[in-house]
């Protein structure tokens, strides 16, 4: 019987194993005969490797092998690729310098991979790694994007350290709009570098089976099929059919586990080389050095308005730090996931965005929760706020005046997107009501009595998630399709295995997807298993990133369920001696319309596998696969409002209230959706108040290389959040859903900075708003007051 669970806050089915210590993560897994891998990493930001002596390491107890880039070269191990080719403003492809899993002659950032030591135990491998003697010829290094184009060259084939100089929009048209402006607001801002820090460090276990000449790689991946594709097609040449990638329970990803990294590549190659399984688990300090980082933009923006405060045009100039090499999807983040979002919720008629992507001696930068969209939202919601202050307008009023109106959808933005649906004023109004915007002045006065400065900050965001369709992204340079697969496999006894390409690493798919299948097929949730994360079991898939799982993966499941129902109708028609057209499916039963003649889903499944009385022209079995390629992105949107108190004596900011009103379309499981919002806000608050990946500008050393210096949000840094929802159902997917995973991280940073600058009575400050920065600004504000 159907649970009728869609829309209900069903508690998660996956929780019991995690709560009892029975989750199975890569590092929990051991293979007989395994060796431990430890990487020798570059201590320098930029240097030529003049020699590597492995003799002492090889002589160290337990060490079985030491490999360098020179060992991989003869085996044809290729460069780690970038899967999206951005075409620059001159029609040339971006520069994509070689990025070998173990360096060949030159290191380009601290933590770059110089050699690997394989030993019987991790401690022995570490002992061996300490004994690898590497001679470096140090080169001057640069870690700052703004200085990259005049800095020492990282790669011969990337002159000026420029990856691309790219433009979206027509500069002349925008200049024309600016010439008619009544007021122009200008803003320089930095989007700080972040280090993702999923709590489970990356890990890999690789095992080669010489009997079948095949490989298994257990990896902490968000998208095992994509990892397999990259490893097979671009890096190792191992046929996809001979490589099984398994991503079991994975402890968070946030983008950082999308990519094909050096470490799993080396483990995979080395396992055949040494004929034994090879395992590697990052220490947290390695995660800091060598996981792909996020953000790191420097931007100048200008917003033109008429006398009524209506936006006439937006100009944006951004320099984006790619780090030392192009990570797998790095190139599309500051372009197609950033510039295309610069309309936000507004009717700005013309927009131009120029992005220069540059190489620096830092860890590669790629997608991190939000990926491009937080950068766009931060820019827009900051400049709109500054504009409101300059025009002396209420910030809510200025936003409302420029919102795209509900009757304007579908709305084509000047930056290449078509928003299908939304109601931005509804979320803004709901959020203002929730936080009691009208009561703010009284609360501010109360704070002032206690010596505190109170501020309020809005962020009206939009995001584009479930990036699609494949034909469009292909035309923009994507090297992959962006569809998803699903297989709904009935067993003869009526239980179901749902194989999904959407990997779960905290998102609760095992519950949400089961709710969808349960309601669609009328099968109780306990009879439904959600299977993910294994290329050996699941059809080719694209995985989890960009808030796509439910909108794309869930839609694929819906489509497979549809096929099941169609086939079931044929079987039911045969059993019930009726025409297929007369069979209707509802609540798990196939019924002859207008009669009480009916067969249950379980009976149909059984008949499909025991087809003694069965349609002659129908294949046995009840097992359907579907692929779903979306027609468009989904466009979740909403308003977050932060209220803060600043202690001017210390500069400490306390978040005293937070409301979030989001429109995610139809909600399958509000418990899980709200959890996603909470987590996203926390990461955005982290960016705005606490987190900053800092490299020393002279030495290029990572100064924030552990939790001693990189400030992760903790429970006492955060308030409880008040979350509300509005709903405009997505028009183009069968579930009516939009993505919800990244919204919090996208919305929250400008809300905080708008609130703090409001409290201080200033126009702008850079993230993170650390106590010292806030204190200094409070002092300055006091002096100038």
């Amino acid at each position: 019987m159907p649970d009728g669970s869609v829309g209900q806050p069903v508690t998660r089915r996956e929780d019991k194993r995690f709560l009892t210590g029975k989750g199975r993560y890569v590092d929990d897994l051991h293979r007989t005969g395994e060796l431990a891998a430890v990487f020798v990493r570059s201590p320098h930001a930029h240097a030529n490797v003049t020699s590597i002596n492995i003799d002492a390491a090889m002589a160290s107890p337990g060490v079985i092998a030491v490999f360098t880039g020179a060992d991989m070269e003869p085996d044809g191990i290729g460069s780690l690729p970038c899967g999206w080719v951005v075409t620059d403003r001159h029609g040339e492809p971006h520069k994509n310098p070689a990025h070998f899993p173990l360096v060949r002659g030159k290191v380009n950032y601290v933590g770059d991979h110089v050699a690997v030591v394989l030993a019987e135990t991790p401690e022995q491998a570490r002992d061996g790694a300490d004994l690898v003697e590497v001679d470096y010829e140090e080169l001057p290094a640069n870690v700052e994007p703004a200085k990259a184009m005049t800095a020492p060259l990282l790669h011969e084939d990337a002159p000026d350290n420029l990856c691309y100089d790219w433009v979206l929009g027509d500069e002349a048209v925008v200049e024309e709009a600016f010439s008619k402006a009544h007021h122009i607001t200008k803003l320089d801002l930095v989007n700080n570098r972040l280090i993702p820090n999923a709590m489970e460090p990356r890990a890999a276990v690789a095992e080669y089976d010489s009997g079948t000449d095949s490989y298994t790689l257990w990896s902490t991946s968000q998208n095992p099929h994509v990892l397999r594709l990259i490893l097979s097609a671009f890096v190792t040449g191992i046929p996809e059919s001979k490589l099984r990638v398994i991503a079991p329970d994975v402890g968070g990803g946030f983008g950082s586990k999308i990519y094909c990294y050096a470490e799993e590549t080396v483990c995979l190659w080395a396992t055949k080389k040494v004929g034994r399984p090879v395992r590697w688990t990052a220490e947290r300090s390695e995660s800091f050095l060598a996981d792909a980082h996020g953000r790191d933009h420097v931007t100048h923006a200008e917003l033109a308005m008429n006398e009524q405060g209506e936006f006439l045009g937006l100009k944006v100039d951004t320099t984006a730090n790619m780090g030392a090499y192009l990570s797998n999807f790095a190139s599309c983040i500051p372009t197609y996931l950033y510039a295309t979002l610069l309309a936000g919720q507004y009717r700005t008629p013309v927009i131009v965005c120029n992005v220069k992507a540059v190489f620096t001696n830092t860890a590669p930068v790629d997608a991190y929760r939000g990926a491009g969209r937080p950068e766009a939202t931060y820019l827009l919601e900051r400049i709109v706020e500054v504009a409101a202050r300059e025009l002396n307008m209420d910030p809510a009023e200025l936003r409302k005046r420029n919102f795209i109106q509900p009757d304007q959808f579908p709305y084509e933005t000047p930056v290449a997107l078509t928003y299908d649906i939304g109601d931005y004023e509804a979320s803004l109004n709901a959020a203002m009501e929730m936080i009691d915007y009208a009561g703010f002045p009284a609360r501010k006065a109360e704070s002032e009595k206690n010596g505190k400065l109170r501020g309020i900050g809005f962020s009206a965001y939009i995001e584009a998630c479930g990036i699609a369709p494949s034909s469009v992204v292909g035309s923009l340079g994507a090297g992959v399709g962006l569809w998803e697969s699903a297989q709904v496999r009935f067993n003869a006894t009526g239980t179901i295995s749902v194989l999904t390409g959407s990997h779960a690493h905290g998102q609760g798919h095992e519950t949400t997807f089961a709710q969808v299948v349960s309601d669609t097929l009328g099968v109780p949730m306990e009879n439904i298993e959600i299977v993910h994360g294994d290329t050996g079991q699941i059809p080719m898939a694209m995985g989890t990133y960009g808030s796509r799982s439910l909108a794309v993966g869930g839609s694929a499941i819906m489509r497979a369920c549809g096929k099941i129902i169609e086939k079931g109708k044929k079987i039911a028609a045969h059993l019930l001696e009726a025409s297929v057209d007369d069979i209707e499916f509802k609540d798990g039963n196939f019924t002859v319309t207008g009669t009480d003649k009916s067969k249950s889903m379980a009976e149909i499944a059984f008949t499909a596998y025991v087809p003694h009385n069965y349609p002659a022209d129908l294949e046995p079995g009840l097992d359907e696969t579907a692929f779903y390629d979306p027609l468009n992105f989904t466009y979740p949107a909403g308003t977050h409002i932060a209220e803060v108190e600043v202690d001017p004596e210390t500069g400490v900011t306390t978040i005293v209230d937070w409301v979030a009103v989001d429109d995610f379309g139809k909600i399958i499981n509000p418990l899980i959706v709200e959890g996603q919002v909470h987590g996203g806000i926390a990461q955005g608050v982290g960016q705005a108040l606490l987190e900053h990946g800092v490299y020393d500008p002279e030495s290029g050393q990572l100064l924030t290389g552990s939790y001693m210096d990189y400030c992760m949000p903790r429970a006492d840094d955060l308030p409880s959040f008040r979350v509300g929802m509005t709903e405009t159902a997505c028009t183009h997917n069968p579930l009516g859903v939009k993505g919800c995973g990244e919204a919090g991280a996208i919305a929250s940073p400008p809300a905080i900075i708008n609130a703090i600058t409001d409290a201080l009575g200033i126009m702008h400050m850079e993230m993170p708003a650390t106590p010292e920065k806030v204190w200094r600004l409070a002092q300055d504000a006091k002096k100038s007051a």
Partner: protein
Amino acid sequence: MPSVSMTVNGRTVSKEVEGRTLLTQFLREKLNLTGTHVGCDTSQCGACVVHVNGQSVKACTMLAVQAEGAEVTTIEGLAKGDALHPMQEAFREHHGLQCGFCTPGMVMSAVDLLQKNANPSETEIREWLEGNICRCTGYHNIVNAIQHAAKAGAA
């Protein structure tokens, strides 16, 4: 090689270990109790929190030999058979976990809190969790779960 004996989840165990073997390594690799996780190398994330003689400690910052004679409880030892401990139940009921990696340490830490303070305020809960980092939940539902566990008398 020194040997160490302790009681883990009610079972007496005795093993030879190196002096440098951490309690986390002992639990994970010698006893295959992989619910105790390692999320950092600076004793801050708290994914490794277990109870030693009834007190929550970071098992990554304790040598196995230092637990000689101790009563150790890991996340695997918290539930009674199929019945979840009230704290585990509260986390499940209130969606206090997402990826599950920090969860064992978070739960063990929360259980210790209620042992010491049966009715903590939200502020006290948040301060207590200083040594447990979660990247997924924003702590909202963790705090909520602990409040509910306290109300249910989980201490």
